[in-house]
Structures are given as C-alpha cells and as structure tokens.
C-alpha cells in the first residue's frame, strides 16, 4: 500500500505541474509512472485515469474497455457513476488510450473479451467512483465550511441543506487534497443506476451515423491501401507484375509487404480497382494441398487411433460405464467459422517525425500500439494508439494483421495510410473458429443418474495460435526468433503435454457424475485460429447437450427433468433449468411446432434456452426462443436482454448456415451470398427472463450463444426423429 501511495504522491506532483496546478492524477496500479493518455480540457481535474471533471461540471469518463456492441460503455459508466452519483447520460464517454491503469483486471493486459468486463471492473470502477466522490465531498466540506457528514451527493452535485452545488465548483480544492483509497461502497439496496434499464449511452450516435468507427477515420493527405493476399494461409508472394496497377489512375505505390502486395492510391476505389488488375503468384505450402475431405479424414483417424493428452481424469470411468444400465456414444462435428463482423478490418497509420499514430477499432489497443512500434521501429512511447467504436468483433478484433499491413505500407510509401479489407478478405484471409470433432461416451442408470462421462475432442488449439498473433504485439521489444521459439514451445506443449482449456471448455463440466475423463488430440493444418464468440463453448455445448438428450431418452426421462436431476452439484444452473422448466410447461406450441431445450454454463453465467421450431421439408424454422439467464446482478437489464437476443441470432446463423469449405487450402466461401447471416425474416422472437440472484455480475456477451444450437437440434429431433450431430444442422 505504501509503495502505491508514494508513487501516487509523486505522480500528483508531476502532473500537477504539467496541468497548471489544477490537475492531479495517480496510477491505479502503482506500477506505471507513465503519463496518462488524457487530453486536458478547460482546466480539467483528473483524479484518476478514468475521470476528468471540468470547472463547468463536465464529467469525462475514460472507458477502459472496447465497445463492440456489447454495451460496455453504458455498463462501465454505470458502475463508476453509481458511486460517483453521476448518471451515465450526463457523462462524456471517451475511449481510453494506452496505459496500464486501463488493464483488464482479469487479464492483466489492456484487452477486452471473454465476457469479462463487468465482472472484472465491478468493484474496481465502483471504488474509483466512491473515492472520487469522497474527495469531492472533502473539498466541498472545506470550501463551504460544513462537516462532511452534512453533505450528500446527487446527479453530479454536492447537496448541503437542500442546496445544490455542481462538482466542478470544488475541483480546484479537490486537486490539493488526497483522495480516500477505500471510501465505503453503496449497498445493493442503495443503487440508483445499477439494475435500471435505461437507454444505451451510444444509441444516439449509432442511430444518426455519427458514431466514429475505424473505417471512418480521415486525416490530411491520407492515402488508401488495398492488399492482395494469398488465398492459402501462410503462402508467400512469389512474384507479381506491379506495372499493371501502377499505371492505373490515382495509384501512387505498389508495395510488397509481409502478407502480400499492397496498392496505394488517393482514393479507396482507385486502390481497389488497381489491386484487382494484379495477378500475384503465390508459393505452395503444405496447406495448399488440403481439401475439407482430407482434413476430416485426418480428424477421423485421430479420433479412432490417437489417445491424445488427458485434460481431466476423475473417478473411475471404466467402473462407471460398467455400472450403467445404458451406454450412449456419439460423435459430433462443428466446422470452421469466420466471425464476419459487419465492419471489415481496417486501420489508419500515420508516421511523422519519428512518431506514429494508429487508429483502429480493436479488442486490445495496446496491441495496435505494439505492432506499429514493431513494424516501424518507433519506440512504443512514441506511438499514440486511438481506439474507436468497433463495428462488431466477436473475437476477431484481437488479431490485428491489418495494423501490421497498414504500418508496413505507411513506412514504405511514406504516407498516412487507411487500409481496408474487403468482405472477401475477411472471410478468406481471416482467423477462424476451429473445426471440432467430438466424441462422448456416457453411461446412465434407469433412475436417470449419470454414471460416467468420457469425452474426447480432436481439432486445433486456439491459445498457441493466439500467442502467435498477440506476442509480437505485446512484446514489441522481443525479436522474431524469440517469439517464434515461444510460440513453437506453446504449440508443442498443447499438442503433447497438456490441453489448451479453450479447446475443451464446456464439454464435460455441467452435469453430475463422479467419473469423468476428457482427452484431447491436437490436429492442425496451419489454418489461423482465434477466439470466436463463446470460444470452445460454441461447439462443446452442441455435443454435451446432444448426448444429454440421448441419455435422458435411454433412462426414459423428460430431458429437462433429467437435467434437473443431474445438476445437484451445480445449484445456480439447476435453478436456471428449474425456472426454464416452469416456462416450458406453460407453453402450448401450435400444431407442427416443437420445443427443444438446452442449458449451459459459460463465462460464469448460466443460461437455458427453449426453442420453438417447425420443420417443413428440409427447412428448419425457429419461431421463438425463450432464454433464461442468471448473470448475477444485471447492471443494465436491457443490455442483458439485448446480448441474449443477439447471441441467439449469432448462434442461429452458426446452427443453420455457418460452414466454411476448404478447397486446395483456400476457403471457398467469400461473401454473404455463400456465407449467409440470419436475416430479419428468419429471426425468431426472443423472450429473455433474467433471474436476479443478487450476486456480483458475470458476463453476458457470450453465454447466450452455446445453448441455441443444441436447443434447436433437440426440437428437430422432436419434429423428425432425426438426431442431428453435425453443424450446420441439415435435415437428412
């Protein structure tokens, strides 16, 4: 504690001088003495990295997490505003620049993902709000000559004997005082904003075309770059005749870069048109010979012949299976998927006088800074990274190849560069949700108790692939050789020694049995992988819930009752299933419609979904989804509902359509005509039931997704008698 205080005092002094005597600031962590990336406005007061308060009572909140649609600007401003007593709608909310004070407390780096933001910042930002409020109260007590105990606060004002004084009036005095470090937090009963379903703070900007996304950045002398890349991941440029593009109108440069060849022009359409004229020739790599059928054959062989690595080994599965009255065993398949956020990847990079700026909507702005530094040779402290709104992310915007490309082009062309991917680039040159072959063998007794659960997954590992993407960004000082060594080490470790938990999460945890094994066989074909909304859960839930339905049938039990019986060790999930059962029992589906049920815990949140489905011919139609969720305190219940609605749609796109086919190492699909996204006319009604369990909040961005595919598959079984074990779901 004393170390923190010392660095804080020192920081107060330093920035106090820089800011004309009115500014104080301190490092939340005590680890960083670097200057906060905050622009002072109107002699603003900066009590910490998250706030700036101006004398005219402007309240600026520097949001440490990235807004990709999940509502984090609203959620986090609600946390700090609750304790500061300022409504989020009365704050100006800005995206934070790079500083360790903005690290995600769950990750230790400045990254957004894993449905972590509300959970990770819940106490931290409330404490910052409370401490700042305490400081303002102390300043007001001094200025007004009253006891702090006679002061209350409301809506950005100090209140004394019914009279209101704006916070801004006290910032000069506050700047001379020391903030409390452990000001008391409100009890849940005292919340005024947490738990209220007020409108999103970004809704107006996003409804008027004024929200600024990375693609919208426009700076003086900016040139536009379009890159031609190999259709096969990892294949390098062998040769290209640049002259055909160089002679096109507006084109200024044609440059070979690490990922291919870039065309630079004054305007995007000129660059795009000229790039299309190029006929680059690419090297052949091992992947160049692989079709989907080869890949699947490798997966099948691994499933049959390879023991793999043990992730979990509890109890005695052999004895459990022997004790069962019935055994079920089945394989489940999930394909590679692209994220396809609607805003294609893009970045703007400007390099001038030994300094750089980068603008890009990312899930980790520190990574953008690191990559620009690494690929320009400019030290990180001279690279200013600016975040923007993200036009969707879903895991995709943690891998920033486009920032590398924009940097390489900016360096080589000596121009500020706006680099934009096409939709075809996005689907064919991306980083993917790994394909998975899963097998579960499980035993059940006639009384419905599960006796053994033996699971195995074959596929690629996300963590080493992500390290490959992130390490060059997070450690710009490490040379390529060191990074290659560490990535290789992690790949070997996950292939031969231990299991990458992201590969198997959700495959075995939810249901009661003493006897469980989980094995993993790593099979990779050099296809770039990364996190995709709900990560491993996006495919494991399909296998886990499918087998559970089959076990229930063998035991002669209703599938929901069967899950209730087998979640005694998992009380919150059990309660979610119980509430869902009540809703389901009250439903009376129309003739020709069938109900399917699934439940799943992911990212510490429990969700059950009931899908009302009809099957006509080979068409699966989902009419309505009822979603029951327990995510602890719903900080903004309307955003919880929105995330469940959105995750259902995202999951349905994967359940009904999502598929990428590999032909000679290249993905065949290219745009929304052959990689379709659910349309409004296909979208079900979604009813969301939030169980307020009153505990600290857990994530909502991802957990709505895992139950939907198995819920629909379960309804399809009711409708047709077909157990569909392969995604996307196709009626035989």
């Amino acid at each position, binding site marked *: 504690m004393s170390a923190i205080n010392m660095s804080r005092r020192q920081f107060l002094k330093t920035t106090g001088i820089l800011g004309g005597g009115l500014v104080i600031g301190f490092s939340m962590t005590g680890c960083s003495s670097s200057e906060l990336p905050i622009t002072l406005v109107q002699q603003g007061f900066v009590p910490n990295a998250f706030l700036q308060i101006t004398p005219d009572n402007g309240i600026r909140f520097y949001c440490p997490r990235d807004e990709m649609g999940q509502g984090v600007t609203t959620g986090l401003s609600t946390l700090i505003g609750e304790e500061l007593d300022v409504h989020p709608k009365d704050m100006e909310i800005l995206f934070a620049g790079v500083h360790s004070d903005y690290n995600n407390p769950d990750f230790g780096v400045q990254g957004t993902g894993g449905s972590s933001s509300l959970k990770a910042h819940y106490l931290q930002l409330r404490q910052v709000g409370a401490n700042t409020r305490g400081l303002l109260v102390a300043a007001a007590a001094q200025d007004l000559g009253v006891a702090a105990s006679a002061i209350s606060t409301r809506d950005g004002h100090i209140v004394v004997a019914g009279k209101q004084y704006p916070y801004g009036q006290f910032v000069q005095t506050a700047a001379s005082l020391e903030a409390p470090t452990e000001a008391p937090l409100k009890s849940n009963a005292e919340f005024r904003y947490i738990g209220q379903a007020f*409108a999103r703070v970004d809704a107006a900007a996003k409804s008027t075309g004024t929200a600024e996304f990375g693609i919208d950045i426009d700076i003086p002398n900016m040139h536009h770059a379009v890159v031609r890349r190999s259709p096969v991941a990892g294949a390098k440029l062998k040769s290209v005749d640049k002259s055909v593009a160089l002679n096109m109108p507006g084109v200024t440069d044609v440059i070979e870069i690490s990922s291919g060849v870039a065309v630079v022009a004054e305007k995007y359409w000129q660059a795009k048109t000229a790039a299309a004229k190029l006929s680059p020739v690419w090297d052949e790599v091992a992947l160049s010979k692989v079709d989907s059928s080869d890949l699947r054959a490798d997966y099948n062989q691994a499933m049959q012949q390879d023991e793999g690595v043990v992730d979990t080994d509890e109890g005695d599965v052999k004895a459990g299976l022997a004790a069962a009255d019935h055994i079920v065993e089945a394989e489940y398949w999930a394909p590679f998927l692209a994220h396809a956020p609607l805003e294609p990847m893009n970045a703007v990079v400007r390099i001038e006088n030994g300094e750089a700026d980068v603008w890009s909507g990312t899930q980790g702005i520190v990574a953008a800074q690191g990559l620009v530094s690494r690929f320009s040779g400019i030290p990180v402290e001279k690279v200013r990274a600016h975040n923007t709104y993200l036009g969707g992310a879903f895991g995709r915007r943690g891998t920033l190849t486009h920032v590398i490309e924009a940097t390489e082009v900016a360096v080589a062309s000596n121009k500020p560069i706006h680099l934009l991917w096409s*939709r075809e680039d996005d689907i064919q040159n991306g980083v993917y949700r790994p394909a998975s072959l899963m097998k579960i063998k499980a035993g059940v007794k006639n009384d419905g108790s599960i006796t053994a659960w033996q699971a195995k997954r074959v596929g690629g590992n996300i963590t080493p692939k992500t390290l490959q993407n992130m390490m060059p960004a997070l450690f710009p000082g490490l040379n390529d050789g060191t990074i290659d060594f560490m990535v290789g080490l992690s790949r070997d470790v996950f292939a031969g020694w231990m299991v990458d938990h992201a590969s198997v999460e959700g495959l075995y945890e939810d249901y009661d049995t003493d006897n469980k094994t989980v094995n993993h066989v790593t099979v990779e074909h050099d296809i770039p992988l990364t996190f995709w909304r709900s990560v491993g859960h996006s495919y494991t839930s399909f296998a886990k819930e499918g087998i559970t339905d089959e076990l229930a049938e063998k035991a002669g039990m209703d599938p929901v009752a069967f899950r209730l019986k087998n979640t005694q060790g998992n009380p919150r999930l059990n309660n979610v299933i119980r509430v869902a059962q009540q809703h389901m029992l009250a439903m009376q589906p129309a003739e020709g419609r069938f109900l399917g049920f699934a439940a799943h815990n992911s990212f510490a949140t429990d969700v059950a979904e009931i899908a009302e489905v009809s099957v006509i011919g080979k068409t699966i139609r989902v009419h309505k989804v009822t979603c029951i969720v327990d995510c602890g305190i719903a900080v903004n219940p309307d955003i919880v509902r929105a995330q469940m609605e959105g995750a259902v749609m995202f999951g349905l796109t994967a359940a009904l359509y999502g598929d990428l086919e590999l032909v000679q190492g290249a993905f065949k699909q290219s745009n929304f005509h052959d990689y379709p996204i659910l349309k409004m006319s296909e979208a079900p009604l979604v009813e969301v039931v939030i169980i307020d369990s009153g505990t600290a909040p857990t994530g909502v961005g991802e957990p709505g997704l895992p139950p939907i595919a198995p819920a629909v598959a379960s309804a399809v079984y009711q409708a047709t008698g077909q157990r569909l074990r392969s995604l996307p779901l196709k009626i035989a």
Partner: protein
Amino acid sequence: MIEFILNGKTVSTDDDPSTPLLWVVRDTFKLKGSKFGCGAGLCGACTMHIDDEAMRTCMLPISAVAGRQVTTIEGLGTLDDMHPLQTAWVDASVPQCGYCQSGQIMAAASLLKHNPNPTEADVDAAMSGNICRCGCYVRIKGTILSVAQQNLAYNAAQEQKA
C-alpha cells in the same frame, strides 16, 4: 464531371463515373455515416435514398445518379433534429455495435414513406436485405412497427383537428 443533389445541396465530382456512390459520398464528400459491409449489394450497410427509393450504393456507379436526389443518414436527421425513426431507435436501444444501423434506418424510412401501415410481413420483406451481425432484428422490427403506429395515430389526430 458528374453533378447530383446530396442531402439537398448540389454537388459535383470528377471521380471516375464508374465509382460506386458509396465511395464518392465517403471519400470525396466525407460523409461517413453510410457504411461499407460487403461491396456486393448483399448486406445493406450502404443504403441511401435515391429519389426516395432505398438503394444499395456500394455497387451503384455515380453515373447512374447524375442529376438525382441522394439522401444519406446525415440528411435524414441529426443529433439535434432526429427523424422519428431515429428517436425511436434510441428509445428502444436498438443498436449494438451500430455499424449496420444507418442502412437499417434508411431502409426503414423508405419503407414507411411508401407504406405507412406495414404488416410484419411487409417489414420482413423490406428489411431482409439489411444484415445485422449483432442480431438486433427483434428490436428493429418492433421499432419500425411502433413508429408506424405512432405516425398513424398522429395523422389521425391531425385530421380530426382539421
């Protein structure tokens, strides 16, 4: 040189006549509210009104809009003076990432102009070319239908006054 009317003002450009309207509006006239999503007329993020018709502009050459009225999201309403659909969009917290919403709102505004009392099926038909990857469809549809009802009620009240 091609001349057209952009949000009520006559503008001219010497961009190549084959350049899609979207890029002329974004790069030449610096209006960034209309978005690029697919470049193939498949997602609707680039939707603008051409003489009151909602059209995909990522493939529409500017030669085709010479002399015509082009309205973008910036011309529909502003933060201080929103179109009723925009106000309703905010009240219902429709957007998530928000990237598709300019196109959604332009498509919806055109629908209500031509069909002030749409059925759910009409909304589905008019809006199904607009992809929302975040899956805000339930709210988009509900908001369009509720704005239509408000408009009808308002018009009925005006008629009664008259």
